[in-house]
């Protein structure tokens, strides 16, 4: 996608055991939710490295959702709790680096939580709308405009 025609992009890291299934279910239920979300499948939110969250933003994501199982029902016992602390660490780094921490959020959904999942995506889309596109993208657009003859 070239940055000119792009609106905003939300990356959602979804655990196979819950959120990914919920997203699937949302599809079969024909639930409508923001189409600018891009889902990346993970065997467990505990697999996700702090770097992935940062890299998504570095590359131009406007919001990142990390969706794991409900607390206490992680397929791998505590992967979602570990993910939560990594997300919190990444949020701190984002804030230190000049990006709003709210752009990154950890949510918990069960495999049956299709509506909950779409609700979380919608909420993130609203957050992104309220905050505007990522300042990284704005800066890029500005530079590109300057370069243009």
């Amino acid at each position: 996608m070239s940055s000119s025609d792009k609106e905003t992009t939300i990356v959602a890291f979804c655990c196979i055991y819950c959120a990914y299934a919920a997203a699937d279910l949302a599809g079969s239920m024909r639930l409508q939710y923001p189409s600018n979300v891009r889902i990346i499948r993970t065997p467990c939110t505990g697999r996700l490295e702090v770097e992935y969250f940062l890299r998504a933003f570095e590359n131009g994501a406007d919001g990142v959702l990390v969706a794991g199982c409900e607390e206490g029902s992680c397929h791998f016992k505590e992967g979602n709790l570990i993910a939560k602390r990594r997300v919190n660490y990444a949020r701190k780094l984002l804030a230190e680096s000049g990006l709003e921490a709210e752009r990154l959020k950890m949510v918990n959904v069960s495999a049956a939580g299709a509506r909950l999942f779409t609700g979380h995506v919608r909420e993130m889309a609203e957050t992104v709308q309220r905050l505007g596109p990522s300042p990284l993208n704005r800066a890029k657009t500005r530079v590109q405009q300057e370069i243009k003859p």
Partner: protein
Amino acid sequence: MHSAEPEKATEKATELMKMSVARARLLSPLTGTSFAVDQTGLVIGGGVSGMTAALALAGQGFKVHLVEKSDRLGGRALDLRYTLEHEDISPFVAGIVKEAEEHPNIIFHLGADVTNVAGFIGQFKVSLFQDGTDSEVSCGAIIVATGAAPAATGEYLRGKDQGVITQLELEQRLQKGDFAPGRRNVVMIQCVGSRNEERPYCSRICCSMSVKNALKIKKLDPSAGVYVLYRDIRTYGFREKYYKQAREAGVIFIRYEPDAPPLVSQDNGLVVSVKSPDFPEPVEIETDCVVLSTGVDAAGDNRRVADMLKVPINADGFFVEAHLKLRPVEFATEGIFLCGLAHSPKHMDENISQARAAASRASTVLSKAYLEVGAQVSQVDQSKCISCMTCTKVCPYGAPTVNADHKAEIIAAKCMGCGICAAECPACAIQLNHFESRQFKDMLDELFRSGKEERRPAVVPEKSGVL
């Protein structure tokens, strides 16, 4: 999906496809390894579920260790006297105990506590503490059938008035014949200590139990007044028949709402008053016998057992299966199975079916002389490992260990493939097969790569998935 915005939906599909292609460039074949299986089972818990499971395995020719904490087989079934169908339960329990005791393939460990579980599917080492001594047994699969406990309550003057008893006590008295029902009112209160803040779940057995005891009383003496104060009657399945019978026999069912529970007072003899949404006025019943349908509590020891086995329990303290529908009698931790009240409150027939199911799943492990381990496991790049031991601390399954070179090594059979260690290792020395860091990073790069930017050259994975 996104039917209102077809262009955007297509754009989404294209991008997801691009990302997947980026990842696919980095995929490598997965190959597992195999190891010998100890074809012996171990069942924790000597109640009806545990014995049923042990017998099912023993009957297929497997040796089974049956570990029971108390010094008696039978578990909770020993407290029960008859079933809803009015069969006497003790001969059944005695029969199954005898059958188990006489089975040459079952090795009993009565009065024994499980103190440690090491190893993994096919090769568990379970430490037992029995009569003041420690011992160790090996097995290839473990079935958890640790049961549950009756929930105690102090509500409704329980413990303060002789006339307030539990369904279990009523049942025992009815069977012994020292409960004279003649010309008296018996008031049963449902959902005592269930479906509340403390125990949000339905204990499932109490409705049938009260119907069972109410029918028994009515049978002994139709003139007895039996009142059941309930929130919802959950005599599910064919048990509904007995609910109908009870109504026909003249048992009076009165609904109450959770925010207006019945009141039991003892100022002028026992009086139960209840405000039912179905009656305009509150109802008062004079009685000398209030029977509380107390629920089922998770066994207090579950947390300890769960930690040892590295399996999850829910907020209510019951064990949680890997998947409600797809893997209902096993845990995510391979080689460990589940049945009976340890899983959730339910009736004996359901426990028995579940125990048989658990045994048949366990026999899929025990029937193999060798097992293949899944290839979606994590591996340590020994040249990058700095022996910080972070992975040994974060892994929920104790899969990483220190090898003879003082480096971390992940035991494939123990690894469940969550990738927690891979994301935590400060030296980036661990990769989870099929979900490698580069694959995630390339997907993220591809998603945001503008058409003009060069795609990074596809790198041939340096290491294949072969162990």
